[in-house]
């Protein structure tokens, strides 16, 4: 009896082995484990702690929390009419007739416009008053003629500075000086 082995498949290897420099890709690295990364993080924290010896440390109270800019929408006055709205500073609206109160709320589905376009399209019910910087700061009251115009014009009045809406702080009301008491001082018997 003869035994015969027949090889059905040819053994042709096309595998190329290189030293990692000619791969056309970065060389292999062993992926660090979680435990190894924890140790490296501790080392990193130690290095960060040692840096404090070189210069004074930055603040530990977070200024990004205490001085975060307020959201534009919630901190603005909305003017909305005829499918469009715009924003002005809250204290920029000096006067609005009660019959226009519904135009200070955002309606759903409207488009946002810049102030110039919105004002141009709504001059029939909006007017502006130019103010100075010290008036905006509340250090000087508006002129009597302007104040009278604001009350009588029957329109929504927006304060502007060089044509841009600006907040106008109220002028502080001076407290009347307290008269010196004339009552006689009491003395111990």
């Amino acid at each position, binding site marked *: 009896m003869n035994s015969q082995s027949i090889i059905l498949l040819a053994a042709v290897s096309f595998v190329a082995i290189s030293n990692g420099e000619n791969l056309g890709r970065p060389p*292999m690295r062993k992926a660090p484990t979680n435990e190894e990364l924890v140790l490296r993080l501790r080392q990193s924290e130690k290095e960060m702690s040692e840096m404090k010896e070189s210069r004074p440390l930055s603040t530990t109270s977070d200024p990004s929390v205490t001085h975060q800019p307020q959201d534009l929408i919630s901190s603005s006055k909305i003017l909305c009419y005829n499918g469009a709205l715009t924003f002005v500073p809250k204290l920029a609206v000096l006067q609005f007739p009660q019959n226009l109160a519904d135009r200070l709320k955002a309606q759903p589905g409207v488009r946002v416009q810049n102030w110039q376009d919105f004002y141009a399209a709504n001059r029939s019910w909006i007017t502006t008053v130019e103010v100075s910087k010290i008036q905006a700061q509340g250090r000087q009251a508006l002129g009597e003629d302007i104040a009278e115009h604001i009350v009588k014009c029957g329109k929504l009045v927006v304060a502007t500075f060089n044509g841009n809406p600006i907040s106008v702080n109220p002028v502080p009301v001076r407290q009347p000086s307290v008269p010196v008491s004339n009552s006689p001082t009491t003395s111990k018997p």
Partner: protein
Amino acid sequence: MKIISQLFCVQFLASVMAFAQADPTYTNFVRQVQLTNPVVETYLSNILPTGVNDSPMAIKPEGARFELWTVRSTPLNSFLLQSTYVNSFVPVARVVIDTEDPWGKQLDSVSYENPNFAMNKVMPVNTSAMVRRTRADRPFKVYVFTDGLNTTDPTAPEVAKKVDFLRHLQSYGAGGVGDELNRSQAILATPALPQFTSNGVQNPLVVSLSAIAGADRTKLRGEETFSVWSLEDNSVPGRSVPPHKLSTDYLQIWPMTDGSLSGIGANQTIKFALPKVTFHYNDTYPGSQTFAQAYKGELQDNVVGAIIPGSHRNNTSQVPENNVETTGSDFDRIFTSDGRWTIEILTVSPFDTLRLDHVTFNIDRTINVNGNFTTIE
């Protein structure tokens, strides 16, 4: 002084380009907050995607904060794109983060290694509107340039001599990619970093590993933000100017990829057609390619084998991805001879090549034919 504010407006508008340039549903506003007591606000709203505008109000002497907002019409929402404090004596700062992944970095910028930094003090330059990124196990560098600090007059107020350097950490959570992130909830890292007290390009801060929260350090996903802030200014009696952010930059941290293959067991002997093999890739790094390759012999490093058809995936998105791939019909043709073979899953990223899983098995397709031959005269 208006020139200064104009320059800041240009910077604002560059940011708008990335967000709302071609989208008519966004309208841009610049809010100038004049830091008087009480503050005065003016809105500049005719803001085109590119261009220059004068600030509505001169910033002297109290200083002003400029906020660039874009407002979406439907649904109505506002987004703060950038905020910058401007004053006549406020120091200037620039923060630039660099990682080993060149994504978001200008092509002509210095390399991550920056070997000549000590001599020429050149900082890398990043592309605007692209967020730098790295992997949870990789280091990164933070460059800071400061100018305008008073380094000669010891009697100058603290606000003129120092700036704070802050590091904020924020995790995206399991599977998160940072959408709808409320950055006001970022955590100020401890220990605090040292202040800057000199002008010029500072030596880069080398962060060997991200410190964002996560029990499994291989699976971090989140972002780190570095910013330079002015100090609170109490130098003028009766007037306090709060700290202001002078510059900021952030990077995203993405998890390490893991993967597995199933369908063939270790040391299994295959005599006929190879079974279907399934590859699971989890958290592939953005811009990486992940694939399985086969080669003859035992497991070896840095081998170029035959890429298994159907296993290759490029992650072309900007966030990690999960994929499940299976071998194609011509999978069998790769294995051209009997013997020991290895299949391994590799993921190739700008950092390195990592092996995610492997299996070594036997192929024995030789048919032994045993027969008797008899002859008859």
